[in-house]
């Protein structure tokens, strides 16, 4: 593919230092393998060109959530994320009014006259307009958070840079399908025009992203429930397919180092084949995910087990990392 790229990552973008081999899902996005990742790079470039949110679908462990952070690091953008839950409301992403703090202040005879003091910016406000967000709430004009430090529950922020106010932001709204069905429609204006009005301040406060430096918004979904057509119309849509054996090997190299490439290749081939047989297209279930592959490699390395299909120990490892009962595999909630 040939086109003018604003986002042009290396085959593997690795921002990790001491975390190599750490356990658990790597949704931190410190490592991302763009090689053979199909339309991912093109999709990010189209999102940058159009200013539209990028809606990412794909099976669990396919790299949906980790993409946004890695893109932010490659582009040098600020980064904010919010994990959506069934209780998340649209306003939570914009701002939150701390009524409890105000009540406590009132009881302590220390209430602030200006209610704006109790308004705390949400991820979209902080991404759209860092200047006004910094002036807001009890943390007003505090030092920018260090990289990786989080905000409220479910938030994670990378809010720093040489020139905070002129650096655009990447925003990840993770698992939008977990939200109440009305939430996506309530985000149409903020995500469509990058502006909204805060109404809990003394005077209505307009928040607007710079037209020259609009944020890049990533939204992930497991497709557990359908999103409203009006919301879909405002997004680009990208579906991440299950990784190929070659891509899995590249992922393993990025996570565990280049030593052991033959081991990675043997495991990748077996796992992709076994996963396709066990729950492939005929059964209507997704193939192997990168996260499951990493679990299998980690188990083989840590337990020093030869990944030979005739080795009963290895067979057990494969069964526990991949051949899960159907209800566990399909239940991603």
């Amino acid at each position, binding site marked *: 593919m040939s086109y003018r790229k604003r986002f042009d990552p290396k085959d593997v973008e690795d921002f990790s230092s001491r975390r190599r081999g750490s356990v658990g899902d790597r949704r931190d996005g410190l490592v991302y393998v763009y090689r053979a990742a199909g339309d991912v790079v093109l999709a990010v470039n189209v999102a940058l060109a159009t200013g539209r949110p990028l809606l990412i679908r794909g099976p669990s462990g396919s790299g949906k959530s980790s993409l946004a952070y890695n893109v932010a690091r490659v582009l040098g953008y600020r980064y904010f994320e919010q994990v959506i839950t069934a209780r998340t409301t649209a306003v939570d992403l914009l701002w939150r009014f701390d*009524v409890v703090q105000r009540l406590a202040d009132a009881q302590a005879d220390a209430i602030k006259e200006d209610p704006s003091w109790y308004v705390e910016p949400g991820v979209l406000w902080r991404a759209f307009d860092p200047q006004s967000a910094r002036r807001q709430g009890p943390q007003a004009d505090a030092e920018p958070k260090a990289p990786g430090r989080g905000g409220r529950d479910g938030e994670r922020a990378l809010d720093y840079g040489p020139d905070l106010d002129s650096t655009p932001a990447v925003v990840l709204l993770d698992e939008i399908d977990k939200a109440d069905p*009305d939430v996506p429609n309530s985000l149409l204006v903020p995500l469509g025009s990058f502006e909204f009005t805060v109404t809990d301040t003394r005077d209505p406060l307009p928040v607007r992203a710079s037209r020259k430096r609009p944020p890049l918004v990533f939204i992930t979904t497991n497709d557990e429930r359908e999103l409203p057509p009006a919301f879909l*119309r*405002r997004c680009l*849509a990208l*579906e991440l397919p299950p990784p190929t054996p070659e891509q899995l090997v590249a992922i393993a190299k990025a996570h565990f180092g280049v030593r052991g490439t033959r081991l990675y290749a043997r495991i990748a081939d077996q796992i992709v084949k076994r996963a396709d047989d066990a729950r492939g297209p005929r059964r209507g279930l997704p193939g192997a995910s990168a996260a499951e592959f990493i679990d299998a490699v980690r188990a083989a390395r840590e337990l020093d087990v030869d990944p030979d299909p005739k080795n009963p120990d290895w067979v057990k490892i494969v069964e526990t990392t991949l051949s899960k009962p159907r209800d566990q595999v399909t239940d991603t909630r």
Partner: protein
Amino acid sequence: MTSARAPVSVGDAIRALGQLRPTDEKTRSRVLSLLGLEPAGAAETRPRPRPTATARPTSPGRERPAVAREEPEPEEPDEDPSPLGDVVPSSLDVHPRPPGVGIGDVQELPRGDTTSLPTIEPLLRPTWIRGIVSAALSVPLPDGPPDAERIVEKLARLQPLEEIPRRRAPTLRLGVQLLLDSSVRMAPFASDQAWLEHALHRILGEHGVESRAFVGAPPPPDYEPPVAGTPVLLLSDLGIGRPSPDPDWRDPAEWPAFAALVRRAGCPLTAFVPYPPSRWPQRLAGQLTIVQWDRLTSAATIRGTLGPSAR
């Protein structure tokens, strides 16, 4: 990789192609595809998938009794261009006319005219279904902002605040228990039931819908109401469309007892009934919320039925 979305706008395509300046046709085509705009000539004409009784997902362990119905083997799964589908299957689609049957001297009509009737639109308008579901099945839970009035009242009485009272906000996160009447009387509406069940699965998620079937009048012996607060939606004629003789007919007196059972469990009960209010059983007034299930049903009519204080 695929993109399944409605088109954004031509403006976005111009902006993307103008900035990215793709030099090959493949890249240009992928950019348009990401925007939901199929390149000219690339669009395929595909049959629109239709929800059928056999294709309906059911909750694990709550299998619906099999309905004796022969269905053609489902074709390859396909992308649904219309999110919820805007037609329901015609009976002639399911049971096509047998070929080559003529009667004496009567000239057979051209087969194309007799085997394809116009598609049937569902009772509920597809474009309104989200609002309808939200209006009918949202339940108010204390998820909203703190309730200042209740807080002030407590403080004014010098009572301690053991917990922060919150305002109730309507939510669909509890899902729904769907009860489908599969009696003979509801046979004309079987496709609409299937369509609505399919729509609920797509709006509330696979885990948000527990489907159960019954014949005639509920409850079946093993019926258990869902967790307290979960709405129960009944798709039934409540015995109104009774043919003579009706093998599934039960005494309508069973309905108030059922409604009381659901109410005691703390679950709001709503019935979608495909008949006008003039035919609704008088004895059910006040026992459950009845919504007329037809083409004019909207979120506004449902909210009007529920009233300002309800749910």
